[in-house]
């Protein structure tokens, strides 16, 4: 499992950038990513990976319901 392992500044930036990207149409996100530079460039691969999962998460209703659990032993 890839750990985020971000410092507080990077974590806040990731949160803010993800909001910006999700405000855009999916077709506009690639160009938006390409224009990221400066202090945000290091987050680009991470954001790209996250955004690439958006359609799949939506269509599969990822985590939409809690799975059925077995009964624990008494």
């Amino acid at each position: 499992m890839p750990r985020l392992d971000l410092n507080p500044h990077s974590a806040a930036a990731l949160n803010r950038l993800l909001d910006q990207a999700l405000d855009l149409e999916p077709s506009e996100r690639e160009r938006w990513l390409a224009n990221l530079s400066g202090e945000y460039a290091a987050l680009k691969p991470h954001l790209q990976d996250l955004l690439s999962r958006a359609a799949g998460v939506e269509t599969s209703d990822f985590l939409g319901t809690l799975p059925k659990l077995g009964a624990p032993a008494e």
Partner: protein
Amino acid sequence: MSEQGTSLTDLIHRVHDGESGALQSIFELTYDELRRLARNRLQTAGRAGVLDTTCLVHECYLRLATAKKLAVADRIHFFRYAGRAMRCVIVDMARGALRSKRGNGERLLSLSTTICESTSAAEEEVLRVHEALDDLAQVDPRLVQVVEMRYFAGMTEADIATALGVTDRTIRRDWEKARLLLAQALAG
């Protein structure tokens, strides 16, 4: 200190006054009630029963509202705490079920390993989501609350928005971000 005779509304007000012990007492009260209700429900429904956490949380609220004197005005605060308690109940149940299955699995290993593996997928998903929430807290602690209330407690976006004092739109966006981050974490 025993909180047996203390009303839930008093405890909530003490949390607002900054008393950390009161928060622990609310958690314990809610956890114990949810755990008891969940186990009763599974015993009634049998091993194949589906745990409707939405119903459990509402039933827990009604029971505690009566038994522990919870004021109607504090209803939204209860639901804020219920998400965390429901997460702990579900995680403990998943760990217990996994231990049980792995115990049976050792005996069944010569017959079929695939059966045991497939029936553990639900518990493993729950435990991996639980562990990945530590990473989400780095990005925004509210994402963790939203996952606890939405995924573990089955609350609606409108109820979560009311409990957290934000708009429905904010909760939808939080849920969208949380799912992307969890999809990435669980894919690794």
